[in-house]
């Protein structure tokens, strides 16, 4: 049974497209665009899965992931990172911080759906 996805992304058209394909697949999608308050938003309304952009206004996706992994409440929360920075060092940093999946832009809708289903265990 699809659950709740929190999409933390600041590109309005990417937000709209991803929200559409996930909603059509049965997921409840919440969105958040500000890096500064993103970790707090996760704690306030814990989703089943977080899709996290790296370059966000206020705070980077890496910092947000670090916070989530340091908090016992969100330590095991599945996090999928999306980024245009696909260099090895970026991937390694994300993995060190405990990301579940690292996807580089551009990606296909089918990939997103497949990984969301797989990570959220549906």
């Amino acid at each position, binding site marked *: 049974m699809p659950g709740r996805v929190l999409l933390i992304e600041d*590109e309005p058209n*990417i937000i709209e*497209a991803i929200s559409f394909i996930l909603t059509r697949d049965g997921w409840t999608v919440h969105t958040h665009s500000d890096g500064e308050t993103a970790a707090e938003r996760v704690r306030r309304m814990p989703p089943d899965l977080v899709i996290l952009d790296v370059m966000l206004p206020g705070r980077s996706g890496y910092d947000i992931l670090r916070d989530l992994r340091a908090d016992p409440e969100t330590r095991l929360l599945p996090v999928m990172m999306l980024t245009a920075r696909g260099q090895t060092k970026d991937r390694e940093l994300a993995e060190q911080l405990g990301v579940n999946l690292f996807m580089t832009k551009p990606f296909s809708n089918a990939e997103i759906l497949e990984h969301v289903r797989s990570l959220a265990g549906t």
Partner: protein
Amino acid sequence: MPKQLTGTRIRDRRLARGMRQADLAREAGISASYLNLIEHNRRRIGGKVLNDIARLLDVDPSMLAEGAAETLVADLETAARSARAEIDTAEPAVDFASRFPGWAALVTAQAARIDTLEDRIAALSDRIAHDPQLETALHEVLSVVTSIRSTSSILVGSDGLDRDWETRFYKNIFDDSLRLAESSQALAVYLEAPEGGGAAGLGPAEEFIAWLDERGHHIPELELPDADVRAYMDRTDWPSEAVTAVARPWLERYRDDARALPLDHFAEAAARHHCHPGALAEDTGAPLARIMRRLAALPEAATTGLPAIGIAICDGAGALIYQKPLPGFELPQTAPGCPLLPLYGALSQPARPLRAVISLPGGSAPRLSAYAVAEPRAAASFDAPPVMEATMLVLADAPAATAQPVGRTCRICPRPRCAARREPALVPMTGS
């Protein structure tokens, strides 16, 4: 066995011209048996005899001389090693160089050119990986492409899509296409090299900063009380003469700074004052700019527990001449920086220290404490304008207080309402 070369080449040259050994010997005024010994490299040759034989064989004496050949052979062997070529040892470079010196010189020249081009490619790759302006522009292009790909997939793969959604997605694609056109065009302009090439390459100042980056901006040899800059420079392999010219005054100043503020005492004081330049200036009596440079030159081992330290120095025209970047804070080397940075503010208020908490746009950029001061670079003299230089120290220790929003440079700054903006940004305008 380079000493055998001259004789071998005399023999080859003579045979190529169809001359008999006896005829060449006679015209050169030596015996045929002596020439025979020379040609079999059993007698060394030089001076007048070499010049006479070279003249008779219609060749420049340098093409027959041993020293030139030794260099050529060494260059050929270097070229072979560099290309990891598997050369048959039965065909030593010495034979090739002696028989075909012109072609051998061409091979070594081409090998040297390949080395230069490979160095240049490495420098460009490094620049692509670290240039914040380029990174931001590429990020923008990839983000828009992602949006277009995702949205168009929905339109193509969704039968019976609601009309409102369809209209919305078409509009999104149209908006994204405009953004993509603009950002890709700007990227092309940025990457375009001017006539004569070289814009995308590194200038001497950039090369020197890259050299310092590799060493963590700390030079242990110049920390010693009797440090000798000239000797250190002689021992160091520099990329070019131009870099040497940039490096020399910088290293001399480093040595002077190190003598005035020896490392052990300064590191201890920096830890005690948590890198605060004002407190360090009071403690040591040193000028602020020198304090800032010494902080930036602290070795990694001395910075445990201290905030991350960055520095930028510009000349009186605002041109960046040195920087040690921090994660999230790196000024473009060639593009003009953000005029809101205290670095430039200090230039208009010489000798007056400025400080501010600054925040850069972008998720990975932290708040930073910035301290800046502009001082004359050289002693003042009559009838000449002062040569000013501004120094800005940045520390990653800023409290979560109100910060002055600044940027790196207009082209990658998304702040929409900025009185200091010179030109439009490559990135979408967001935030404050």
